[in-house]
């Protein structure tokens, strides 16, 4: 029975992916991609990776889908250009052979992986107690491979600045994205107002439980970012000007807190990015809180895009 679920799910995932590629319009392709993200979320659950399922639900299907949907309504026309630039049959066949060959080799290589699989599950489970964390994935992210997480949170700052830097010179310091009219009446305005508090609670809940159960700063931060975007498109809030000091601080708070905690470990003689015994859990929670804020700010600003209006 379980096997049937997995085969069905794998087939649906591939079907949605094929649709995304073959869809007649950009909009249809994006909807196919959102469906793909939903199905992949289920696949992660079946693979025993609920932490990833949560992330995929929030980022893969949610945030990526919204960015692409908002892009597709702004990107119009170009049909002739696209068909002129679409490669001919020979290239198609060559690309198909190349891609198929890579896929086939990959499938064979996966089947050739050693059994029992080498891995770090036992080590990761055994030592998470030293960090006071019940969730082994959180132990990897904040402990064993903390540098990855630190650098990744820095990548988000890079990405936000990279997006901002695409603006025209005269818009620097201004407000990102289009202005949305305030929705006073109608079902949408009501729904937005109703959803906001629920979403905030869920976002904070997901970020908070991350230490013990699936969840954490990235997933929770994404939900909070989504709620901000909702308030924005409903006209309830305006994006802050990118010159604002508060925005800059919110963006760097997480990585900076992580970096400082790393040095604190060094100062206490435990080493860079080491969590001092006894203080590990509270320090991690503090850093996670700052990271949640920064992730939420970064993702929301990535959705909002480069500054388009004067402050």
């Amino acid at each position, binding site marked *: 029975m379980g096997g049937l679920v997995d085969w069905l799910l794998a087939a649906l995932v591939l079907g949605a992916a094929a649709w995304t590629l073959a869809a007649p319009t950009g909009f249809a392709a994006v909807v196919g991609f959102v469906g793909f993200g939903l199905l992949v979320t289920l696949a992660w659950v079946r693979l025993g990776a609920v932490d990833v399922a949560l992330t995929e639900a929030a980022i893969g299907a949610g945030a990526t889908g919204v960015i692409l949907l908002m892009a597709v309504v702004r990107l119009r026309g170009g049909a002739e250009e696209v068909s002129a630039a679409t490669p001919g049959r020979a290239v198609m066949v060559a690309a198909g052979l190349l891609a198929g060959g890579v896929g086939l080799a990959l499938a064979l290589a996966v089947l050739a992986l050693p059994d029992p699989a080498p891995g770090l599950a036992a080590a990761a489970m055994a030592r998470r107690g030293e960090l006071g964390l019940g969730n082994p994935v959180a132990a990897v992210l904040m402990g064993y491979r903390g540098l990855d997480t630190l650098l990744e949170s820095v*990548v988000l700052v890079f990405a936000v600045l990279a997006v901002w830097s695409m603006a025209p010179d005269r818009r620097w310091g201004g407000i990102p994205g289009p202005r949305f009219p305030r929705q006073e009446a109608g079902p949408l305005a009501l729904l937005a107002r109703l959803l906001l508090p629920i979403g905030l609670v869920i976002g904070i809940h997901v970020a908070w439980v991350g230490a013990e159960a699936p969840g954490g700063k990235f997933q929770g931060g994404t939900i909070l970012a989504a709620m901000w975007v909702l308030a924005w498109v409903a006209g309830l809030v305006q994006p802050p000007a990118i010159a604002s000091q508060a925005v800059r601080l919110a963006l760097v708070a997480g990585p900076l807190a992580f970096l400082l905690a790393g040095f604190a470990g060094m100062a206490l003689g435990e080493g*860079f990015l080491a969590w001092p015994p006894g203080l590990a859990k509270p320090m991690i929670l503090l850093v996670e809180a700052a990271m949640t804020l920064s992730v939420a700010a970064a993702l929301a600003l990535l959705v909002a895009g480069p500054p388009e209006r004067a402050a």
Partner: protein
Amino acid sequence: MSGTTPGGWLLVLALALPVGGMLLAFALGGRTAERIALGVLGLGTVLAGMIAAEVYAAGAPLAYRLGGWAPPLGLRLQADGLAAAMLLTAALVLLAVALFGRAAQATPPGVQEARAPFTFWTFLLALAASLAAAFLGGDLFNLFVALEMLTFAALSLACLDGRPSQFRSELRYLFFALIGSVLYLLGTALLYGAHGTLDIALLAERAGADLPTLLAAALMTAGLLAKMALFPLHLWLPPAHAGAPPAASALLSGLVVKAAFVLLLRLWIWVLPPVPAGAGAPLLAGLGAAAILVGSLIALRQERLKLLVAYSTVAQIGYLFLMLPLVLAGDPEAAARAWLGGILQAASHAFAKAAMFLSAGLVAGALGHDRVAELGGAGRAMPMAVIAFGLAGLSLMGIPPSGGFTAKWLLLTAALGTGQWWWAAVILGGGLLTGGYVYRVLAGSLTAPPAAAPRPEPPAQGPERVALALALVSVALGLVPLASFGLVQIGRPILGGAP
């Protein structure tokens, strides 16, 4: 072996300093970003020098175990000769470009913060952080994150001018970079599945010539080649590099592609067992040889100076790949020569190419155009920039005495020593073609200006001096006695005894 060594804390600082500096520059903004960048990059140069000295003195790599967790569970930073040499090269070029940028990328008076300068200074630090992460990382996934940092930093620097025509070439650049990253990541998934670790030192012990490992290596190599723009994946590079402002082009061509190269060496020399690596190396070197010839030939035909310099990058990257079959040939003496030659090529090209882009930018700025055919009068108006271009050109050609000469000579003798004379022929041919395009530029700039032309505006002295200094370093690398380059051999696996 993977524990923390004395002096390991230097590695932490070398990474954390630019990371923290970037975050602060971003938060504080405006002119403060420039001040922070200058300070951090200056300190970074000192740190890189200290690391190199420490590695050289110890005769062994430095390592730092992060968070106290031992690999395979934890991560480590490590600096062997390769990392130390590249870190020092990067620090010097970054500092030079920062000094150059003080004039070109100053925040205009009367404004609190402007787009291009703020982006430039912040991403200069971002680039320093990314390069430190890429050179010092000891774990393949950690290096993936470093590659992604590099992508964002490099792309934004390339877009700095914000000209409408840029977006198309930058999108192409982004796609190549992203595909490269994804293929690299795919390889790490296979390696983890096969060996249960991504730590380079542990993988070196565990990896065999099994299907997952070989496919992983092939995918990762393909990804890195796309990022390095090795022929035939080079088409994205010239428009992207040539379209950026000179300071950014210098970094992109001089440094960014080298980070992917260091990862490639980690993969081929450390992780892969010698036998399959030896079998695949001639293929890569063949592509490198094609890059040298094709890139140089296209550079010869360019009408725009910056595009000419960018195509020269395509060609010079090719030389780096010639070292692989020579290092892996199984002759320890030739391997040491080829290794030094390859790294020296990477370093001297970084200095020379940065010098070339900076001086080309100065010339283009003063003349108001960069058409190669109409460079007349440039030599009279800004002799220092033209001399810098010429000296850098000597190094790229491989004329003694210069770093480029020593590098190419080492590769050449290693090729002859291992009986692979055909690579030697490529090196010589590439040198001649390089001479051709450098001569075109120099000859053009040294002619008298056309009578009707407006008098070119002489540039400020400071930036010119920076370009000249970089060119001089590239040349001076050739005057250093070979024995003092022992640094780069430290920590290199000895592959002589391949079964």
